């Protein structure tokens, strides 16, 4: 098993520039191409422990982030390419790394319809997996990063892939996206956090990514059974609490957070039904990360049904 960090620096850089670096990411293989310094640096830091796929293996997602011409280079712009086509407008080269990650998210959001996909972080401890859906700013990534730095395995920061007709989550471990205040929160929380390049003035503000494969089993692709769904919400001025949610309300909210619930039609309904009826659901309102960690840590034990 050959990891990205086993490559010599020059070899890594050249293969990345040529687009000959297929990497296993959960159930998929991404082939990434870029010669932009921030992408080379970020990919080396954050994906060093990812496995290189064997030559000839099917590549699910061919992505690149490059200057598409001399003019773009002069203007300091870059383009994200998927299968050599550009689905988005060009972006400032200084935001290239963040855009690579967002582009890689987009690949899954748009194409991974063999699963019910939720916009959610997912973590596990032992054989217990917890899904944490949330709108941007709800604090799911911050909580996910803190849990990852506190012994939990990060299954995903962005996509909970649910195998239909089961309550199983397919791990898709990739770097955790942190933005604005949450970057300092996590830096203060743990000195062990490893960060990639910082992208400034993006449409989400200042963005960086944290290395997520901190657990011994981070790259294990075996599905894990979901035990609970926690809807985190960061609220500075509200009392902190963990409270049970009704399943029907949770169904509707989880469907809202799904990328493809509507697309899957009846299969989506059945997949969501199977998931929700096999897990317990909670609201988590927090402003103190330690409160949130304790709440999630205690979850399986306090609710023996999970």
């Amino acid at each position, binding site marked *: 098993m050959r990891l990205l960090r086993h490559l010599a620096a020059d070899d890594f850089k050249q293969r990345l520039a040529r687009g000959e670096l297929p990497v296993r990411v959960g159930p998929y293989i991404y082939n990434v191409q870029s010669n932009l310094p921030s992408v080379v640096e970020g990919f080396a830091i954050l994906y060093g422990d990812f496995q290189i796929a064997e030559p000839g293996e099917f590549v699910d997602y061919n992505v690149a982030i490059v200057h598409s011409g001399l003019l773009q280079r002069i203007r300091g712009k870059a383009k994200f390419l998927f299968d050599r086509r550009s689905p988005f407008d060009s972006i400032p080269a200084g935001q290239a790394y963040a855009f690579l990650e967002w582009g890689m998210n987009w690949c899954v959001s748009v194409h991974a319809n063999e699963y019910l996909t939720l916009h959610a972080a997912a973590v596990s401890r032992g054989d217990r997996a917890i899904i944490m859906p949330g709108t941007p700013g709800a604090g799911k990534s911050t909580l996910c990063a803190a849990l990852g730095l506190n012994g939990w395995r990060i299954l995903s920061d962005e996509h909970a892939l649910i195998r239909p007709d089961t309550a199983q989550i397919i791990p898709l471990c990739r770097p955790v996206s942190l933005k604005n205040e949450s970057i300092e929160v996590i830096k203060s929380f743990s000195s062990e956090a490893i960060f990639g390049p910082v992208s400034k003035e993006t449409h989400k503000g200042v963005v960086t990514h944290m290395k997520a494969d901190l657990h011994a089993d981070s790259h294990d692709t075996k599905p894990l059974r979901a035990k609970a769904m926690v809807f985190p919400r960061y609220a500075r001025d509200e009392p902190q609490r963990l409270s049970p949610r009704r399943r029907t309300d949770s169904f509707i909210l989880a*469907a809202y957070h799904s990328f493809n619930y509507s697309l899957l039609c009846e299969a989506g309904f059945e997949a969501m039904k199977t998931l929700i*009826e096999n897990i317990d659901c909670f609201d988590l309102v927090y402003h103190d990360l330690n409160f949130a960690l304790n709440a999630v840590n205690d979850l399986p034990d306090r609710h023996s049904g999970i």
Partner: protein
Amino acid sequence: MKTLRLKYTAFHNRRITWVQMETTLPVRTQTPSTEFALLRVTALPDYLRKVITVTKKWRIDSMGRFYNPAEDTVVYFDTRSGDTHLISDFAAYVMQQLDDQHLSTEELVNRISPAIGSSNIPELTMDVSRVLEELVALDILKCE
């Protein structure tokens, strides 16, 4: 547009028929155990002769899927439209009575009343009527 409530001539078997003018909005009856028909009368001078008694029946074209975990709400997936709705357990129960059947409000109430142990027919009729109107508004239910 104005709503014009025309004179109704039929009042038998607890059915009141509302006849509605063209270019008017639907009129909703407030009387328990009544039904209304949305009929168009094109010739104004003749409207009195065109009053017709109609019993409205409710139907569901294609019964969707329910997720009912025994809470007071139920998730309903409309297989026809692809929409998902959070509805009350009472609304779900009313819908399930319509499975493959066309029933009037009165027939529905007669079915539901013993099942839920309610003898207050006027109140139950109001509740059922309200639920039916909401389900029509959500395009889950049709009337004929």
